[in-house]
């Protein structure tokens, strides 16, 4: 009888406790890094960004993957560095949930709303609503379906990742060999673009010289990458290289290759630019390259938000307003240049 009453209370207590500890933990860490960060920023940032009176709201999907976590962390770090008053919401897992969160965020009438949507199309109406209320919207990565729903969109170049990878494979394999492609989640634009860019480029460069012997999605999950690659290794007895759509997932693929003792037979590449993979590239061996899809784009978005909020253009640009579209380059990171990009690893 008493158990019935105790259990829910206990659970609630534990849940609350976790929440408090979690919050306490992260703010401690942030505080530790602040003084140094502000000091350097005061020196390096141009005066355009010294606008702490700009009110910014930030919304992103739940930070449950290396990349999305880095997006949130980088945005928060940039806001701290700029001394910005920024409200953050990064727990949504579905478009509907994120739309509700954004509804709440815009009640507080921020000057600028920075959004990495779970998915572009379903969040377009709520972004449009913010714009209609005079709140400027900066759209990160996954583009809204109407250009009137954002002032600026900043993102990586998924097609470019495919093209860069295609070039790298064409060069390294001298247009000859069997290649395996491990894709992300089937049916989303990230996956389609990374696949298409790669296919287009190796066709253009090698015209059928490189053969894609297997092409399977593994949903950006390391354990799925492991199982899928184990099966592919059974079927294909001669593989020269593996193109994977994601660094985290790629680690599962790498485990499958190593477990089979075939890590001398082939090499592989990732995408994203995680610290772990950059370390592996530096060491040499199975991992040869990754193609940057840098989460620091969220920090850039927060910087753009301060410019936008204080009515300034990009420093050094002639236009008095910031550009409406910024696409970051999908740089190829290899052993030769990894030292240059290591600090961007997440």
């Amino acid at each position, binding site marked *: 009888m008493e*158990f*019935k009453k105790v*259990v*829910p209370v206990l*659970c609630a207590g534990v849940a609350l406790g*976790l929440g408090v500890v*979690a919050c306490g933990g992260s703010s401690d860490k942030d505080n530790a890094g602040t003084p140094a960060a502000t000091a350097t920023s005061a020196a390096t940032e141009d005066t355009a960004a010294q606008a702490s009176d700009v009110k910014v709201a930030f919304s992103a999907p739940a*930070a*449950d*993957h*290396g990349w999305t*976590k880095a997006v949130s962390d980088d945005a928060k770090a940039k806001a701290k560095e700029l001394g910005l008053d920024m409200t953050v919401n990064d727990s949504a897992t579905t478009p509907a949930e994120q739309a509700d969160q954004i509804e709440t965020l815009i009640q507080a009438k921020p000057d600028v709303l920075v959004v990495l949507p779970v998915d572009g199309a379903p969040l377009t109406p709520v972004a449009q609503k913010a714009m209609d209320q005079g709140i400027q919207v900066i759209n990160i990565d996954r583009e809204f379906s109407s250009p009137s729903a954002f002032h600026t969109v900043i993102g990586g170049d998924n097609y470019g990742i495919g093209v860069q990878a295609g070039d790298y494979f064409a060069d390294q394999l001298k247009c000859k060999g069997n290649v395996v492609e491990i894709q992300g989640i*089937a049916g989303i634009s990230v996956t389609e673009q990374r696949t298409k860019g790669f296919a287009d480029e190796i066709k253009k460069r090698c015209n059928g010289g490189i053969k894609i*012997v*297997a*092409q*399977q*999605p593994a*949903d950006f*999950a*390391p*354990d*799925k990458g*492991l*199982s*899928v690659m*184990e*099966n*592919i290794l*059974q*079927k294909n007895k001669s593989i020269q290289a593996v193109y994977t759509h994601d660094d*985290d997932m790629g*680690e*599962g693929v790498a*485990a499958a290759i*190593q*477990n089979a003792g075939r890590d001398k037979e082939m090499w592989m590449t990732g995408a994203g630019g995680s610290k*772990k993979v950059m370390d592996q590239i530096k060491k040499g061996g199975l991992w040869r390259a990754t193609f940057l899809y840098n989460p620091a784009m969220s920090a850039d978005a927060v910087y753009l938000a301060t410019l936008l909020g204080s009515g300034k253009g990009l420093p050094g640009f002639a236009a008095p307003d910031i550009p409406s579209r910024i696409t970051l380059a999908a740089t190829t990171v290899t052993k030769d240049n990894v030292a240059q990009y290591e600090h961007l690893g997440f």
Partner: protein
Amino acid sequence: MTTTPAASPAKGKLSAGAGIKRIDYQEYALVGVIVLLLVAGGILEGSSFLSKDNLFNVLRQGSVVGVLAIGMTFVIATAGIDLSVGSMVAATGIAGGWLMEHFGAFESAPSLSFIIGALLLGVLLGAVNGAAVSYGKVVPFIATLAMLLIARGLALWISDKTPISLFDLETLRWFGTGEVLTIPSSLIVFLGVAAVGWVLLNRTPYGRYVVAVGGNPEAARIAGVKTNRILFSVYVLSGICAGIAAILLCGRLASASPVAGQLYELDAIAAVVIGGTSLAGGRATVVGTVLGVITFAIVFNLLTLMDLAVEIQQITKGGIILAAVLLQRRSN
């Protein structure tokens, strides 16, 4: 008043007897499905499918969900469900990795500390599920749905959302990739768990109580079965199985990932049901579950070997599930 309970155990016994016969047919039907798949695979993919190497690969891959499915068989036998097993695989793996990293006392045996960490958290999370369902009277679907979220959250929180490398843990990696007389160690663990499950279910009073609680909880209670204790225990069993599955998976993956195990609960539930255990409770078969797991593992392997487009794979997989269940019905 007294005649109703007296009558229902008798009725329960009768239907249990009929159930055993039906289950036998279902097991034969599944063996038929597996043979069909093997023949089809041999024709379509030839030696790359039927090689000993690949067949052991199939069974090694199936072992992770297989261990979960054995625990799930007990839960479903009580008319319950455990939606949290996939998240628990991630959480217990991360707990193992965390203990390995943070406990100096175990430094000389990092694999052992991983295994202890994974099993301990499995017991703990399973106990929370069990307490909520049995003593808290929360519907299993909701209690374990809550745990699905809590366990995934714990995995992300403890790991700070980054995978933990287990590359140097030789013993742990043996569980994932090792062999005994060319038989994969994962498969041995899976069959061991299945054997323990079979004995528990078919040769001990505990097994009879589990099935009785699922078939008719009122009658079981009146017959003197401590139903709350039985309910509690099956969720703990499921939690332990999640810990064992995490050991097999992390051993193969050479790392513990907080995003691992997504949707494993559905694979486990499907394998249990296709094997002939009733979702309504009161009827359970460990052998059927093992065959169900093998069926799914073969289908996944074959579809990847054929390098079919994902949309065709999904339609095919759905079709095979439906056909397998229909085939079982017909043979009844």
